[in-house]
């Protein structure tokens, strides 16, 4: 046999069934030589691992190769030599489960963090960046740790993972929770900004840190994240920022704050890309149907939008190749009776297909992921929420669309989607099926605008900085806000998710019309219908200022209408029905259901309460200056936020318990308004002692597992 086996020859041999006369020793020898080159070596060793069972008798050499490329987690500890055993032990972080060992690159990051360095890490999805957080927490060195994540779904995922430290740390996911002696705060930036100033943080993590760089569609959230980052850095807390596939960091931080940027391609699984050829005239969906009927292992199907996901789901349902599974029956009928019997998600789950996108109620989306990870459904049709919001992995990823919403995604996003394929220990090789040409390989540079303070950094961000940290040009930008008399810097800063000029315009308007508007702004607890209407109109005209339709709302009046409509419906099922009316068309029904979800999540649960409090804040400032009595909108804002039901429904929904079930429990046992207390009540609840269906109990048991 030729001794000059090239990487591609070895690759091809390892992809296929072995011929009987294959000299395995030669194959391993070739890999050991090629392993002199890091990247190729690692890839080939992973391919070799995927065929481990075909190399019986060569285990010790395979182990040596694994050790050589630093993939310690894949080593079989029992058969190691003394020096390799010591190296293996050396790569085990202290305080984690005994079977957890870091690979070489993880250990490097871990030891740097343990030394107190600030680290910004760019590494592929399968690297295991989060496990390092666990190890740092397990060291028990820190008193207060903050983990900032981009979505509420990730709060929940992280909370579950870190619940193993609940003996030493109180886990906090909501700003209203009580602080104890040692805490782990797991928060989105919007939640973090309200409390991080009150708690001395020693160590913080920003997950998906590239979100500090604003994009067109998401600059508001990026600014809040920058603000959080700045405040934590000012507290002198040590940090660990993590994210995938970043080329470079283009900003320095404050003078005395140093950090190390580590960029690595270290992978623990590899991805095999397959181009799907679509002959002219053939519809891509037919190719997709053909492909899905062949794939037997867990498969993600990436679509550009919820609408596209629904279309694909519909085609899969119509094609008739998926049989009904009995397994998810009780969940399916629960969903049908609690949302709508014709909702596409229920029909899909019935056939072992899940759907995951931003419109689906949180607890149900989480349940879909759980079913997928447990192998109870084999296909998950998803949108970008899966790459930014949750960490799920599959053997196969089908990239059906090459866009997110309407714009083509870049190489960075493409990589992140691809990163969902393969899973440590079970799928060394993942498959990516491409329906489009991949984007050109160019990775992003990340800037932290709050520190760089380039010309285009907006005043909304700068207003949150201490004066001493402002650069000269930033001071100039802020001058007009410092010199105006309408609103204090504090008010502007507290509402800085709203453009500063908008805030001032509103203040001016209120000042000029104070006698007319006074009675609409000094209410406390619950507004009259007219007071609510005025609030909605002011919010729309001064804060949102859009002529477009945003999640089913296009004016202040309509916002007012939607809120009342939601309150009067009494529950989500009735609310959905109002949008469906007598419609019988399946896709129209789905649109209606999702519109109801949109309004609920975007306006009722998030934006309206937030804007209402900002309005309250600004109005009070104006009222106080004119020595008039002030309003207090906070209890009404809370009421709207929890869907005019009970305060506990929101946190419990985030923890995976659907609103319908928590309300059902709340009718039978006392659930406190206070989140901590309601969680304790659920923790102590025996689900068998309350009137719940089997599937509802299952939700409760799953919740209790991590409390």
């Amino acid at each position, binding site marked *: 046999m030729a001794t000059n086996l090239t990487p591609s020859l070895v690759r091809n041999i390892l992809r296929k069934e072995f011929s009987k006369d294959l000299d395995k020793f030669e194959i391993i020898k070739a890999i050991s030589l090629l392993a002199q080159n890091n990247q190729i070596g690692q890839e080939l060793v992973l391919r070799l691992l995927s065929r481990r069972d075909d190399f019986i008798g060569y285990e010790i050499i395979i182990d040596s190769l694994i050790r*050589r490329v630093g993939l310690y987690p894949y080593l079989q500890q029992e058969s190691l030599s003394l020096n390799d055993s010591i190296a293996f032990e050396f790569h085990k972080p202290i305080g984690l489960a005994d079977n957890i060992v870091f690979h070489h690159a993880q250990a490097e990051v871990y030891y740097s963090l343990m030394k107190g360095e600030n680290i910004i890490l760019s590494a592929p999805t399968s690297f295991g960046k989060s496990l390092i957080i666990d190890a740092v927490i397990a060291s028990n060195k820190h008193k207060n740790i903050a983990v900032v994540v981009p979505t509420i779904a990730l709060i929940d995922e992280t909370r579950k993972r870190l619940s193993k430290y609940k003996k030493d740390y109180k886990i906090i996911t909501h700003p209203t929770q009580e602080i104890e002696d040692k805490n782990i705060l797991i928060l989105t930036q919007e939640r973090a900004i309200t409390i991080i100033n009150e708690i001395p943080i020693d160590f913080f993590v920003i997950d998906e840190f590239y979100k500090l760089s604003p994009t067109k569609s998401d600059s508001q959230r990026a600014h809040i994240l920058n603000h959080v980052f700045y405040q934590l850095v000012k507290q002198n807390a040590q940090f660990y920022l993590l994210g995938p596939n970043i080329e470079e960091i283009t900003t320095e931080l404050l003078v005395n704050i140093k950090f190390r940027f580590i960029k690595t391609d270290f992978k623990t699984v590899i991805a095999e890309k397959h181009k799907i050829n679509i002959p002219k005239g053939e519809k891509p969906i037919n190719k997709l149907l053909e492909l899905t009927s062949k794939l037997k292992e867990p498969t993600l199907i990436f679509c550009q939008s919820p609408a596209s996901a629904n279309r694909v789901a519909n085609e899969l349902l119509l094609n008739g190749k998926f049989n009904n599974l009995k397994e998810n029956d009780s969940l399916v009928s629960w969903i049908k009776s609690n949302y709508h019997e014709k909702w596409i998600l229920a029909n899909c789950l019935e056939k072992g297909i899940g759907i995951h996108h931003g419109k689906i109620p949180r607890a149900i989306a989480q349940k879909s992921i759980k079913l997928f990870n447990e192998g109870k459904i084999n296909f998950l049709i998803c949108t970008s929420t899966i790459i930014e919001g949750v960490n799920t992995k599959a053997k196969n990823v089908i990239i059906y669309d090459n866009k997110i919403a309407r714009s083509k995604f870049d190489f960075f996003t493409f990589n992140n989607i691809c990163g969902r394929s393969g899973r440590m220990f079970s799928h060394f090789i993942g498959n990516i099926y491409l329906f489009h040409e991949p984007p050109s390989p160019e990775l992003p540079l990340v800037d932290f605008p709050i520190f760089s303070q380039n010309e285009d950094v907006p005043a909304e961000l700068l207003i949150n900085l201490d004066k001493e940290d402002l650069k000269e040009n930033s001071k100039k930008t802020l001058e007009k806000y410092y010199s105006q008399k309408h609103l204090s810097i504090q008010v502007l800063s507290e509402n800085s998710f709203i453009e500063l000029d908008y805030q001032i315009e509103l203040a001016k308007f209120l000042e000029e019309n104070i006698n007319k508007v006074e009675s609409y702004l000094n209410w406390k607890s619950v507004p009259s219908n007219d007071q609510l209407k005025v609030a909605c109109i002011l919010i729309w005209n001064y804060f949102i200022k859009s002529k477009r339709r945003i999640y089913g709302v296009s004016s202040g009046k309509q916002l007012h209408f939607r809120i009342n409509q939601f309150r009067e419906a009494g529950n989500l099922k009735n609310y959905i029905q109002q949008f469906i009316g007598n419609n019988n068309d399946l896709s129209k029904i789905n649109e209606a259901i999702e519109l109801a979800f949109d309004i609920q999540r975007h306006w009722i649960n998030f934006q309206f309460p937030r804007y209402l409090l900002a309005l309250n804040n600004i109005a009070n400032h104006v009222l106080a200056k004119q020595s008039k009595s002030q309003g207090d909108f906070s209890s009404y804002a809370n009421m709207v936020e929890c869907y005019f039901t009970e305060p506990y429904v929101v946190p419990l929904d985030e923890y995976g318990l659907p609103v319908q079930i928590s309300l059902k429990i709340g009718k039978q046992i006392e659930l406190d308004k206070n989140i901590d207390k309601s969680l304790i009540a659920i923790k102590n609840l025996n689900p068998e002692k309350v009137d719940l269906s089997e599937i509802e109990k299952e939700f409760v048991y799953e919740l209790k597992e991590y409390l």
Partner: protein
Amino acid sequence: MNKFFKIIIHKNDEIPNLHGVCAGFENKLWRKDQLVEYIFNYLPEFALNHSELMDFDSLSIIPKIRQAAGNVYQSQKFKSRGEFGELLLHAILRETYNSIPAISKIYYKDSPNDTVKGFDAVHVIPNGNDLELWLGEVKFYQSIYSAITDVVAELIEHSKIRYVRNEFITISNKIDTNWEHSEKLKSLLDPITSLDDVFEKTCIPVLLTYDSSIISKHEKSTEDYVKEIEIELLKFHKSFCDKLGDFPLTVHLFLLPLSTKKELINKLEEKLKIWQQI
């Protein structure tokens, strides 16, 4: 690192040559404590490879690697402690020849059985313009006679592989490409290079330890002691050479007499136990 071993005799006029070394005495005691401490200084480079040593801060490594060794000790897998002889061999090679652990493992196929075998240590040593490959064997024993018998049998096995062409798998330790000999190492490992060429440059260092009544009898490195131990060392060198007979590869014999292996092991365990708890 400062040299630790006291050279009693270096007999270089025949092959296999002889390095007779001992740990010496201090405060009227055989230096077992110091020996244990000394060999553990080699733990980082013994256990970690080149890139790992580069990526970890060398100061913070030491306590952690000691702890790792302690944990391995506790795992019971290395109960016989014989494997700690590999660390001893590593230390002696590094000290006496300034060898470089550039290769972590060499395996060969013992055809036709197809079982895979390896060596206790693989180092390289620059020699003029060439690189020598040193494939080490160690017997961390109490009885010199069993040590000699066992190691000779193994060496004869090894010598057979000379005739098994191209049946080697070498796993390099990824030495820096800036290393002056890195190209030579590559060509040494290249399967195109004839094994005859490789073996011309191959040496087999053999380390044998044994319990010596001479050491337990003395408490200081006196002239009498040196004389007595030298005679013993020469005697065992001769019996090793006789037993090995005509051997095709260059062998370097290292003899390390111990007061007793048992007290050395006890000391070793004591240390490991402490480190494991840190």
